[in-house]
């Protein structure tokens, strides 16, 4: 066995705790990868692909979940490890990454992130796996293992979210793909009924506002345990409409440089190492729609109210959206 197949270079020192780490918490279809990729172009940050690490406690459990997943759940981690530890994203490097992860079934998933964060020092890793917001336990695990990490809650208007989910499902249907167990269908048909639905038949109807509410409430409930200075909420629409202003606010909170040069670099998320499809043995790792349109304004943004609302928004949705600062397009 050659040393090169084990690791290309010796690990960096890991005796310093990981203090700087940013988690983006957002339900799917919230522009989170675009947002993450923009942040990752800041010279002091590094955007990771979707690693889904905190869905499991150990790497062994994580591999078991990957085997059952209906999407390429392992792809993001394989690409990140191939890139960061083995220097490239080729089929060969992805095979090395797979072996590296298989040999670490006893590691906690947080240890894997720690290894990567150590390699990336002094850059701050930005993690944004949508799966983490499906369970408060997953977010708790992230906070418990990285107690000084920051958490950014990225929100989107509920109507735009619902339209986006419906559009994505329609597009999937048109493409002829099997959607029976697709995560989008689960998102559109979240099993948890809204409080106002109890006792009625509505729970059987495809309604993405249920997922929007359940996942955002998960995040809100989790953030109650996170110190104020370690959390921030950003509206995706603000980021898309006025990126410089929004990024200034985020960089100020992160205590990072907001120089014109930094902002200029952040306008080019397409330069992320994870933009575009990966090698055949790890194709995805990010929003597959955005992978094909990789620019800051590369795909149309559904503005609230521009598309027909499939159903009226429930009162709790309106309340929560107002709490997030949305005023228009709710009724």
């Amino acid at each position: 066995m050659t040393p090169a197949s084990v690791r290309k270079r010796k690990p960096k020192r890991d005796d310093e705790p990981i203090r700087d780490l940013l988690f983006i918490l957002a339900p799917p279809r919230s522009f989170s990868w675009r947002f993450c990729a923009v942040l990752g172009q800041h010279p002091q940050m590094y955007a990771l692909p979707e690693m889904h690490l905190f869905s499991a406690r150990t790497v062994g459990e994580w591999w078991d979940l990957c085997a059952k997943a209906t999407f390429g759940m392992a792809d993001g981690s394989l690409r990140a490890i191939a890139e960061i530890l083995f220097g490239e994203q080729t089929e060969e490097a992805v095979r090395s990454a797979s072996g590296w992860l298989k040999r670490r079934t006893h590691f906690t998933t947080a240890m894997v992130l720690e290894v990567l964060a150590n390699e990336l020092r002094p850059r701050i890793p930005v993690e944004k796996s949508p799966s983490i917001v499906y369970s408060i336990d997953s977010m708790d695990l992230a906070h418990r293992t990285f107690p000084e990490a920051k958490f950014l809650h990225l929100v989107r208007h509920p109507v735009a979210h619902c339209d986006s989910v419906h559009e994505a499902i329609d597009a999937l249907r048109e493409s002829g793909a099997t959607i029976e167990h697709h995560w989008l269908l689960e998102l559109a048909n979240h099993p948890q009924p809204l409080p106002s639905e109890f006792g009625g038949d509505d729970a059987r109807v495809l309604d993405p506002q249920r997922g929007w509410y359940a996942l955002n409430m998960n995040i809100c409930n989790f953030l109650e345990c996170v110190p104020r200075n370690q959390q921030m909420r950003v509206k995706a629409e603000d980021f898309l409409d006025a990126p410089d202003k929004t990024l200034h606010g985020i960089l100020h909170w992160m205590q990072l440089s907001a120089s014109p040069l930094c902002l200029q670099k952040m306008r080019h998320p397409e330069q992320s190492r994870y933009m575009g499809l990966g090698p055949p043995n790890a194709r995805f790792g990010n929003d597959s729609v955005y992978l094909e349109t990789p620019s800051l304004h590369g795909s149309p943004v559904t503005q609230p109210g521009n598309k027909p609302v499939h159903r009226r928004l429930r009162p709790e949705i309106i309340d929560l959206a107002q709490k997030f600062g949305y005023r228009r397009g709710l009724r």
Partner: protein
Amino acid sequence: MLGQHPDMYALPETNLFTAEDLAGWWQRSIHVQFRMTDGLRRAVAQIFFGSQTEETIRCAAGWLWQRSSCSTAYILELLIDRLIPRMVIEKSPSTVHSEDWLRRTMEMFPHAKFLHLVRHPRGYGDSVIKQLSKWDGKRREAPSWLINLASYQKNPAPGRALDSSTMDPQKSWYRLNMMIGKFLMSVPKKQKLRIRGEDILTEPDKVLPKICAWAGIGADKKAVDAMKHPERSPYAFVGPPSAPMGNDHLFLADPYLRPARAVPHLSLEGPLVWNPDGKGFAVETKELARQFGYID
């Protein structure tokens, strides 16, 4: 031999791939009839604690117990990391007894190279029978792994192998080599090589450079000469009392390269010494042996 090349390092028999994690490996060692942990304890003592004494063997056992939750492949990675830049050679015969264990090697080390070492079925069978006879001469029960090689039964009853009706080592030769062959079909061509053991013993100057070229390391005269001295391996002797083994006991007793051990021109035809009814090799055994380059 290979481990004496300055760019390579031969481990003793670690038997690591027979379990998923080290706790399972320790557990397994309780149930087998050979000193399964000696090789790894000796390797850890030598590589991490600098020598193989009773004290360092105890330290190695503690080091391994501390890592009970680790995957066995991770333990091997730690050894490899410690031996950088040398290429590590693992050769535990136990690995080839299970498709799952073989598959595990490739899954854990996807870029590893695999050298399939073959032996003439007659030389192999004679050797197995000779070892069994030694145990019989001592009036002691042979270990189950040896009985298994002789009879290739799934659950061999002690002593049954000495019954001539069940004893036929060509079965284990055929099935183990077939299992290796099947596994190697999933390995990319550049990562595998087949070598006849007899050729290494009789023509080391020709065969060793061929192996080096395939492994991507130099094969100058100094390196090849060094490889002809397996007795210089830190594992080429009986270890301390608490971990004496870790390699074939015949090698430990006489670790020198002796080309005369390879009996030249063995035939695939004719009766077998272990077969009282005068039958020769089965058709499929002869066919596989011919694929390995053993001609009549």
